[in-house]
Structure formats: C-alpha cells, structure tokens
C-alpha cells in the first residue's frame, strides 16, 4: 500500500472518514470569489498568469501528428503580433502523440503532458494502464494525467483506487503525476473530498478535476473542495500538491475567478504553473482576445487569432 516517492512514512487515515463538505457553505464562499473586481493592471497581470498556466489540450479520436504539431506551435507562439507574452505551461495529448509533441516543443520550456491509464474511462486492467503510462514516459512525457477507477471508488473499494494510483506513480518515474478524479461522476462533494485525499496520500503530485469528456466538469464548487483538501494535506504533512481544474473553463473571467480562489484558499505559493494549471483548449484564445482588447480598446474577433 505504500509508494516509494517519499510518502511511505505517512500514516494513512481511514478514507471512509474523510471530512464532510458543507455544500451550502461552499456555494456561499464560491459566489464571493466571483464578486472580486479585477481591473486594469491587475487584470492584465492575471490574464498573463492564466496564459502561462494553461495546459493546451487536444484529446480527440481524430487527432493527427499534424494537428498536434500545430497545437505545439501555438503553445510557443500564442499571438506573435504581441511581444512579451508567455508560453503556455504544457501541451496535453494522448500517449500515441507524445513523441510528436515532445519533438515539437523541445527546448522551449513547454512541458509535455500525456493522459494515460485508458483515458477517459479508465476501464482497463492494471497491466494495460501501467504499459500505457510507461509508454508515454518513454516517449518523453514530463507529466502523466491518469484517471481513477470511478466505478471501484463508488463501490467503496478505496484500497483498490489507492493501490492503483500508487502503482501508476511508481511507473511514472521522474514524470509528475496528475490524478484525474472525474468529479462529474463522483456525484457529491463529500466524494470529491474523499477521492482527493486518497489521491494525495497515494502519491499524486497534482489533483485534477475532470477529463473534459463529462459534464459538469470543473465547477468552482468542486475546485474549491479540492483546494481545501490540498490545504489540509499541506498542513498535515507539509507536502505541497498542485491543482488542475480542467474542462469548462473557457473564458478569462472564469479563469480569473479561479486564480482569486487559489490565492485566497492556498496562498501565493500556488500561483505559478509549477502548482496550478488550467486544462483547456479554448481558454487561451479568449485570454488573448482580452489582452488585445485591453491594449487596443477594441473588442476582438476569433478570426484574427490562430485556431485552437
């Protein structure tokens, strides 16, 4: 049940006793984050920060090496008309595209993340999931986004879920592990909290809300619940865990609300792409349009930005 990456000393709690979440309280708190007024320089700084935290993602059956190369180019050249824009944090692709992506972003500082473990359903035997993961790492993935077995989780087999995450973590080697809870299938915030705790004790470097294939995805309520779990884990163990809301964050306003939430829940330490990411495919263009609007004073059109 232990994993070798420095968490073996932790005394495991009884996950069935994970703290309950006050849903009404969470909604109250979340609605406050949406009322902060962020304007002018603060907004611009927030937008650039958000850009630099994006995992630019393409996870479609129709992905081709050409599509992936195009996205990797975009990751490094968001909007060349505008100087001094950051790059995104990473590109996120299927394992079969990792080799292509790694070559395309080599030397740019943009990381390559690969989904694995029979993404998005996770319905495969452990051996297959391990092979999937090892393949992605061998191809050059810096980060692995795994999915948990939601069916097992919902049947109460927490040890199974824990062991699986620990095994994948081992297979990751140096790659950082993001654990996708797929909160849209977990039904309650209590379950989200419990799954977060399991993932963090089992060796996750990041916890991530969703695959993006299921709606609802990264609602602020869910993200907030996970941020609280991260905060409690840090207080208890001293270990810092990253957060990645993914799916449904398609506009700048929502991204800024998320940043406010991170800052006020976890503090400034998390406000870098080392510890916080947005999983999104269309957020980048919306942020770019907001930045150009702020500079030109004119509302922008997607026609003048590269395709997502």
């Amino acid at each position, binding site marked *: 049940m232990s994993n070798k990456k420095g968490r073996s000393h932790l005394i495991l709690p009884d996950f069935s006793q994970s703290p309950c979440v006050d849903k009404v309280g969470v909604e109250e708190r979340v609605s406050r984050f949406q009322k902060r007024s962020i304007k002018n320089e603060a907004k611009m700084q927030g937008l650039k920060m958000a850009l630099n935290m994006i995992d630019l993602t393409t996870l479609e059956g129709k992905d081709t090496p050409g599509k992936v190369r195009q996205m990797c180019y975009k990751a490094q050249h968001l909007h060349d008309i505008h100087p001094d824009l950051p790059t995104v944090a990473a590109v996120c692709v299927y394992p079969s595209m990792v080799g292509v992506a790694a070559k395309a972003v080599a030397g740019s500082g943009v990381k390559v993340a690969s989904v694995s473990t029979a993404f998005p359903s996770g319905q495969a035997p452990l051996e297959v999931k391990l092979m999937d993961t090892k393949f992605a790492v061998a191809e050059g993935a810096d980060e692995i986004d795994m999915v948990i077995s939601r069916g097992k989780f919902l049947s109460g087999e927490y040890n199974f879920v824990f062991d699986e995450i620990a095994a994948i973590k081992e297979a990751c080697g140096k790659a950082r592990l993001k654990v996708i809870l797929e909160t849209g299938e977990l039904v309650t915030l209590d379950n989200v909290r419990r799954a977060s705790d399991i993932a963090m004790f089992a060796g996750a470097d990041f916890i991530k809300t969703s695959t993006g294939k299921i709606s609802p995805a990264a609602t602020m309520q869910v993200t907030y619940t996970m941020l609280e779990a991260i905060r409690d884990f840090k207080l208890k163990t001293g270990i810092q865990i990253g957060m990645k809301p993914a799916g449904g964050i398609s506009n700048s306003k929502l991204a800024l609300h998320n940043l406010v939430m991170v800052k006020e829940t976890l503090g400034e330490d998390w406000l870098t792409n080392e510890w916080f990411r947005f999983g999104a495919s269309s957020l980048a263009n919306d942020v770019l349009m907001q930045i150009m609007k702020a500079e030109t*004073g*004119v*509302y*922008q*059109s*997607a*026609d*003048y930005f590269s395709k997502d």
Partner: protein
Amino acid sequence: MERLEVLKTYKIYIGGKFPRTESGRFYSPENQKGQKLGNICLSSRKDVRNSVVAARKAFGGWSERAAFNRGQILYRIAEMLEGRKAQFVEELIFQGATKAQAEKEVNISIDRLIYYAGWCDKYTQVLGSINPVASSHFNFSVHVPQGVVGVIAEQSSSLIGLVSVVAPIIAGGNTCVVIASEKLPLCAITFAEVLNSSDVPGGVVNILTGSPSEMIKPLTTHMDVNGMTYAGNDSEIITQLRESAALNLKRISHYDDNWMDAEAQNLYMISDFQEVKTTWHPIENIGGATSSY
C-alpha cells in the same frame, strides 16, 4: 376593491434570453403627454459585447439552415405578430401614434415580414449568376451571408423601422445586434418576445435598448462584426460608421427610407448584407459544337 395593474418590465434580448442590462442602469423615456413609458434598460458596452458573442454563436446554425426553413420561420414571426397586433397597437398609441397610424404600422410590419419570408429561398437564384469566362472553367457566383451585422434602428419609429431592416438581414442568413429606438423602445422589446416565440433560434436577433451614442462605438469598432447598417440620416453617425468600419473592413449601408411606404422593401436590401462568392470549377475544354455547358 380596485385592482392594481401589473406593469411589464421591458428587458433586453440577448442570445434568446431576456436579461437585465449588465450595468444595472435604466432610463425612463416619456411620451408627449409627459407619461412615463416605463423603466427601460440603459444597456452598456458590455451588453453589446455579450450580444455580439451570442450573434456569432448563432451564425453557424442560422446560415446553414435550409433556405426554405428560414422562410418558414420568418413567416412564423409574421403569424405571431398578427396574433399580438392589439398589444402593439396599444403600445404605439401610448408612445404617441394615432389609432389609424398605429394599426397601419403594425399591418405593414406584418406584410413586410411576409415579403422577406417569400424571398428566403429565391434570392440566391435571382441574384446569383453563371459567368462567361475565357478559360476551361465553369464559373458561377453565389451570395453568402456576411455574418454578424450591427443595426442602428430608425430612431423615429418604434416597430416598422426595426422590422424593415432586421427582416432582410435575417432572411439572408445573417445574425444581428440591434440598437433600438432610444425614445420609443417599447415595441422593440415586445417584438423580441414575438421572435422568441417564433422558432427563431436564440442569438439570431439581439435587441438592446438605451443610448445609441454610448453603444455605437463598441458595436462599430467590434472586430467580430462584419457589417453595419444605419437607418437614419445623421451625418455624424454615418461618418463614425465609415471610420470604424475601416478597422476590419466592415461593409456598411445606411437607409433614409420612409418605412411606412408599402413599397419600402426590395430584393437589394437582402443583397446589401451578402458577400458574393465566385467559384472557378475546372471543366473539360469547351470546343464550339461539343460544348456541354
């Protein structure tokens, strides 16, 4: 006990919904007798932005509808307008028209919608062409919608000015963002309710009330607006349109028609909001007698 009348809240129309203005502001225009017409939304530039987003989102679906289906929907708008005639007449009278004028205005509005409903599946045949070219190509031109069109509706009428410009725009497969008459805003919003109950997809027509002077700039400079039209003859507004249009080469048009004239409608109002797409289709060499085209 005397019944207290329930007054209607006139809200704006964006993306098939009736939100209040994002700004939370309102204004209270009055008729000539000094009666308050109501508390009307004083829309802001952010409402303009939201409307353009909604219009852009609706454009794909609307422009790809079968032309015949667009015609059916325009006809449906006319039907619903006919059913709510009394309400429009009442609003027009409240805003200062005589009963006869009001009835005439509503009738012409209905007929105008029917007129453009009929054109929906015919204008491409009439406007399109097969062009003679001196090479081995079958060369033809078709009309395709511009995209999102910004509309500054006639300020001196409440219903007919708006209907006369919006109908040809949507008949041609465009979507639009309309700035309604500032002083006579009631029928614009009631017309939005008609649209909303007529199978017109949300976002195809978006209607904002408030001060045109505040909304014209963000609308005309918006990079995602492909055309602008203005019903009126204020030379300052026309100049402003021309200047802003240069930003992304918007096509602009302006009209100074008397819309109450039953003849103030024609095919070219549809083509004003169309782009011509010409296709060069390679074919076998055409030699006199064996020509197959």
